[in-house]
């Protein structure tokens, strides 16, 4: 059976069942998050651009909760917007009863807008919602992340660069959703290509020098 290879361009995310290979090229500061349910061979892959939810208007069911909290958070001065992220209700909590979202608060249903997968929080929420919709179980989902490089040595600290903030935001969100990170290849100053094989859950990261690494 021919293996279908799906190219995921910047800012896109997709969820499929095996056998499929997701592929993304030219990862610089962007982060690729792969979520895999090993028992059911369902995989989600997102090529994420930016951390957090910065001054976007959303018509998502969760948005009213966010707005209320952001106003409070804004009063605190000197907080970075990622640290001031409102407490979005965790998807784990809404789906304790068997892995399927109960009502329209399953943000996944409403989240397939263009910029869904541009931001870490909406991307991960959308991936999880879609994976559970396709039958995955949150308890069985594990993550691997790649990317978040700082390409130019321009004196900026890694933690302050977009790549560093992306990685930090993704790790925070996955921790909140209680999803283990089984492997990562982040940071550095080199670009990456990522291949995600859904039949085995293997994620292979390759660089321009021809080096391949499985995470």
């Amino acid at each position, binding site marked *: 059976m021919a293996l279908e290879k799906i190219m995921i361009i910047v800012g896109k995310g997709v969820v499929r069942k095996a056998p499929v290979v997701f592929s993304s*090229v030219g990862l610089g*500061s*962007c982060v690729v998050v792969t979520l895999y349910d090993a028992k059911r061979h369902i995989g989600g892959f997102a090529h994420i651009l930016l951390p957090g939810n910065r001054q976007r208007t959303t018509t998502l069911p969760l948005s009213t909760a966010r707005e209320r909290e952001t106003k409070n958070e804004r009063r605190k001065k000197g907080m970075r917007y990622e640290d001031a992220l409102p407490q979005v209700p965790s998807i784990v909590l809404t789906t304790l009863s068997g892995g399927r979202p109960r009502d329209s608060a399953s943000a996944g249903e409403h989240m397939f807008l263009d910029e869904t997968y541009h931001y870490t929080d909406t991307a991960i929420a959308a991936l999880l919602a879609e994976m559970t919709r396709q039958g995955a179980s949150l308890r069985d989902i594990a993550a691997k992340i790649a990317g978040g490089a700082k390409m130019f040595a321009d004196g900026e600290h890694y933690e302050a660069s977009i790549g560093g903030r992306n990685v930090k935001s993704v790790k925070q969100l996955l921790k909140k959703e209680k999803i283990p990170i089984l492997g990562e290849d982040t940071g550095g100053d080199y670009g990456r*290509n990522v291949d995600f094989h859904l039949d085995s859950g293997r994620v292979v990261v390759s660089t321009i020098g021809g080096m391949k690494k499985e995470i």
Partner: protein
Amino acid sequence: MIKKYLLEEYKDYLEEMMNIGSGNAATALEQILAHRFDMSKPSIHVLPTTKASSIIGDPAMPVTCAKMHMVGDIRGDMFFIVPFDQTKQLVALAQTSIDRKMKKADTQDYSVIPEIGNIMAGVYLAAIHDFCNLNIYHTVPVLAKDMVQAILDETIAGVSQTDKIIIVIANQYLTSPEDKTPMETFFLMIPSSDSIKTLMDSIKEAKKLYGA
């Protein structure tokens, strides 16, 4: 939003400005590298950011790149990009003509690429200054050798997707009359979201002034 700014008249003026800039760039390169550069007409593209890497070629194409920031009336980033296989050609040219001593450890010293990027930036920004009366300065270039998409990632990520434009100037140089394959370089200018309006307004003013 983009359509409003990319009216044909603005684009023509921008192209004219960059054409002259390219001519000056070729002259400057000739003087610095002491080598004849025949430049064919540059192609100038004004695009949404998402299409930048496709103009240069495959998003995974290895390139050498010098990145500079723009400060002053227009803020943003500039990239001077040379495809990897042509970098060696350019570096070899530079080393013979500037008579640089090669470091023993380095078989390839790519530091000439940021220097050329520096010169190109100065030339194009001078063209913009002459035509639009905008004072723009560029910062010290930093070097990277990697895939195009990865290099542009940081800048493209940090901008609003909807109204962002990239100005891509693709130059083709023939380093000698016997050369069959021209050397191609790319110069990208990505003004920040708030600077695009300034740029377009200045072009509009200049057009009125010069009656172009």
